[in-house]
């Protein structure tokens, strides 16, 4: 099946039975329609999104799986962060409903045609969608919550781990030098 698709699209073999296609937003619906209806990639297992704020784009990965669950196909497309709109895939993959609803809540992406884009995990959320990178989580938490006293002497976990590892390394080197 991958062979027949590779006649039409440029398919990158990522190894471990994973293949990838990069497409534009314009050919998105046509491509997914074609793959969904004429290949054995019949299951939409995930829609993953990452926020590339420096390039002002969201990169979405639609991950499809074959009926035998032996191959995965990633369909990658970039959309603008400002006007993040995409047509829904409900008519091809009904399970996209929850995934799109989740993406709408966490990144603010509009899926045109999906009527369930209301509150999901977050209720009454009036801020920027929280997984957008411009959302400052720590500032929000400091503003909305009062911390219990006793965390003031908290150490930075990463710095502390680094320091301890360096110390352990030194000790080990000393022991070896003694030997």
């Amino acid at each position, binding site marked *: 099946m991958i062979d027949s698709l590779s006649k039409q699209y440029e398919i990158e073999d990522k190894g471990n039975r994973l293949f990838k296609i990069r497409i534009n937003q314009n050919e998105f619906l046509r491509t997914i329609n074609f793959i969904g209806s004429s290949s054995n990639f019949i299951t939409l297992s995930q829609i993953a999104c990452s926020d590339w704020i420096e390039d002002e784009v969201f990169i979405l990965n639609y991950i499809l799986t074959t009926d035998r669950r032996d191959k995965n196909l990633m369909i990658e497309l970039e959309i603008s962060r400002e006007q993040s709109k995409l047509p829904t895939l409900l008519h091809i993959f009904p399970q996209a409903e929850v995934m799109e609803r989740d993406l709408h809540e966490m990144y603010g992406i509009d899926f045109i045609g999906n009527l369930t884009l209301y509150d999901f*995990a977050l*209720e009454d959320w009036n801020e920027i969608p929280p997984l957008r990178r411009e959302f400052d989580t720590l500032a929000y938490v400091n503003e909305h*919550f009062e911390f219990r006293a006793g965390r003031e002497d908290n150490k930075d976990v990463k710095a502390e781990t680094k320091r301890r590892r360096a110390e352990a390394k030194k000790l080990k080197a000393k022991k070896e030098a003694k030997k």
Partner: protein
Amino acid sequence: MEEGFIDYQKVLNNEEHAIKSTQSVIQKAVDWFRSKSMFVLAYGTGCGAIEMPPTFTSRYDIERIGVVGVATPRQADILIVSGYCSYKTLKRVIRSYEQMNEPKYVIALGSCTINGGMYWDSYNTIKKLEDYIPVDMYVNGCMPRPESLIEGFVKLQSNIKDAKREAGYIKYRENNLFYKDNQKKIFGDNIEPTYEANFAGMNI
């Protein structure tokens, strides 16, 4: 002693838990009976819920100290909030708590209910449960083992029996505005109508 069990009888018979308060004899008897019959609504809010099945089933068998699970808040005496509470969950927790009949107690399980735990910087998880509903017993740990939970129950039983501390439901009744204000801070005006009966001004 077999690995994993605490000597809960020792905790029960400890001198420091002897009745010292100024309860009347009848009240003492009532409190004693109350402490030996705890009906628990185990509300699985977070990962702590996974410690509940072994606590209630044959491995740890908490029924031997008088703790039994029930299906609905209206039959329960004790609410276990097991782990982190998101806004959405907290709303349901408060609703369940308000549906429970008095006397009612709350056991909060895990670090997340105490200070946010590993979710201390999460935008969607509350940091101190006692700001929103009164907590009678905190059991810390991430996650606390069933032994810790049992110890929490035993300690709560002794608190109930000896009337050592003011029970949470009395605080909730008397300082209701404090709790409602805190709830309002995070829910805004979308707060659920209260279940607490207000008989003042009602024509019965």
